[in-house]
């Protein structure tokens, strides 16, 4: 085996490692589901990092979106988290790819009918449009230091009931619960937020 072949054999696994998920749109695997804690603790420690990152994306948010139990046919697609915004994409077997989008931001401009939110101190603004074929709309959840928007685009026939089931499967976790997990996971050596910042405040 000459040197060039030897080098190729050594390089191939490296390129394979980096290129295994290569796709034309420079995508990546979906990653772990940002799960909600059950009875105060997460099913697996591996489910927390997306929520930690979400908390870092919007350092003011007192609540963070998570997934509790999605109805049959609705699946987690991916997260897209960057400074200032965290997003969760859901697919629906019937309604298609990216049928539901959950977005956390620091602020939003909610409109629509106000309802009590699913968590204390949270208000939900609901607006929906029906066309002959589609049921589209946004639910904005406004709370201290943040806003979580559910955007959906579903078939008109089943849209309303589907959205109610999906919303029931989505949830919120308090920021201090995530901060507590970070602290516990590092035996108290690390914190989620800088020391001079109070949780859930801008």
């Amino acid at each position: 085996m000459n040197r060039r072949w030897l080098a190729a054999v050594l390089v191939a696994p490296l390129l394979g490692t980096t290129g295994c998920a290569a796709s034309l749109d420079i995508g990546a695997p979906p990653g772990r589901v940002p799960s909600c804690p059950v009875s105060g603790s997460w099913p697996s420690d591996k489910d927390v990092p997306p929520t930690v990152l979400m908390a870092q994306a919007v350092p003011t948010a007192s609540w963070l979106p998570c997934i509790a139990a999605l109805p049959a046919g609705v699946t987690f697609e991916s997260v897209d988290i960057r400074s200032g915004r965290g997003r969760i994409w859901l697919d629906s077997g019937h309604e298609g790819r990216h049928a539901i989008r959950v977005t956390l931001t620091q602020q939003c401009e909610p409109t629509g009918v106000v309802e009590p939110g699913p968590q204390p101190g949270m208000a939900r603004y609901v607006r929906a449009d029906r066309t002959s074929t589609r049921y589209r709309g946004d639910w904005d959840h406004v709370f201290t230091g943040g806003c979580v928007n559910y955007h959906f685009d579903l078939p008109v026939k089943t849209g309303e009931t589907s959205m109610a089931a999906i919303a029931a499967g989505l949830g919120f976790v308090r920021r201090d619960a995530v901060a507590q997990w970070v602290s516990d996971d590092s035996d108290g050596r690390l914190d989620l937020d800088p020391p001079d910042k109070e949780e859930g405040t801008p």
Partner: protein
Amino acid sequence: MSGVLWLCLAVLVAGIWVLLALSAAARTALDVADHAVTQWFVDLRTGWLTGLMKVLAAPATGAALQAVWLVNLVVLVIWRRWRHLLVWLGVGVAVASGGEAIAVTLQRPRPLGVEILASWKGFAMPSLPLMVLAAFLMCTLYAVVPAGHTRQYGKFVVGVVLALAAVARTYLAQDNPSDALLGVVFGVTVPLLAFRVLAPNDAFPVTYRRGRTAHLDIDGPRNVAIRHGLEDQLCLIATELQPFGLEGSGGSTPLRVTVKGDPDYVVFAKLYSQTHLRSDRWYKLGRTLLYGRLEDEKAFNTVRRLVQYEDYALRLLRDADLPVPRPYGIVEITPEREYLVVMEFFPDAQEIGNAEVDDAIIDQGLALVRRMWDAGLAHRDIKPANLLVHEGRVVLVDPAFAQVRPSPWRQAVDLANMMLVLALRTEPARVLARARRLFNDAEIAEAFAATRGITMPSQLRRMVRAQGRDLHGEFVALLPQALPRVHVQRWSLRRITLSVTVIVLFVLAVIVAVPLVVNSPI
């Protein structure tokens, strides 16, 4: 040596990633260690230093990386350095998407417990912006910067830029220190090894000299190999190797070789490599797509077969008493990769397009075609560059496209092209009058019915155009009889399938290329 070092580092980095993916304790330990370093940087934060760090971190932003990529793309396209471009693209896609895949797998948060002062995206390990920056800068060094002092200096500059960007991103808490370090190691290693393996400098040097990309550099190790080959295989001791007539040759690298003797003499050699084989394939594919299969458009599948065919054709024409250079044989430079075809050199010969053409030259040119017809041969590339006038004698060179037992159409094309070449320096009427002594009117009429556009070599077409004359039309007007044009378009299932495949591939390439050009790489 440095490649092996970087490879070892990259393997170590991959090992660390595997450990982090498997061990929560390792993750926590690294988080704590990183936090200590990050906190040290955070304690240094001041207004002016933060402003400076934002500037130093700027190379690792989407806009800057896109600018690096686009500049490289333009340079590589202008200089037609396709091999480098392909490796560049491969490395870019592999590093960007591979880095993202690793980040999603490891799911490491951004620096904990500190305020992040600049924008970020996605999980932190490895630092995708620094990894891609390292890869892009290394690609730039190996694809755009010539080897030698310039590249060595470039490596120093790249090192400084990466170090400053890594420090700045750590200061701004965009990355943990280990995210930055491991990202840079991987980002350097992948392009370094990819270019050294897939586009080594010896075979694909980065130069900005003029010349066709098909021409090989005959300096360095290749020069030595050619000299050894000539001596060992043909008993020719070369004292000097010089590129010769590069402007007239796209299919090989022509050389003028001075050979030791009493006195010294010169031979002509054509160096063929896989690059030329690929050129031959693309040329024939292009012709098949544009015109259908114009006889024998099948490409050669090895360099050895390509040179064997040229040497064989030369000997065949010589055996048929045609005035061609004396063949010396073939020299194997690198088995199956590079070969040299060696033949007689005519030191004072002139291309027929530059020589004085009298009746004797016209007669020799026409007799040459007559002889090929009688011997059942066609040259298939009759043009001024392939007809030399040496001591009042016409010599036919470059028989690489020659064909045995060609169709009458192909033979007719040879005749018309020869008459057009001869008329470039004389008059159609004079050439026609001489031609009628060797060919009948029907044969000449058929020749001009068969010859137009693609069937004329591009050099001949260019020279005719440069004269501002319609030589073909002048000949046809002089002919006692005219025949309807022979159509060259040949439709077959193969051509249709090939055309559809090429169109589909082109569309796919555009679909792939547009996001690569328009979108930020991170």
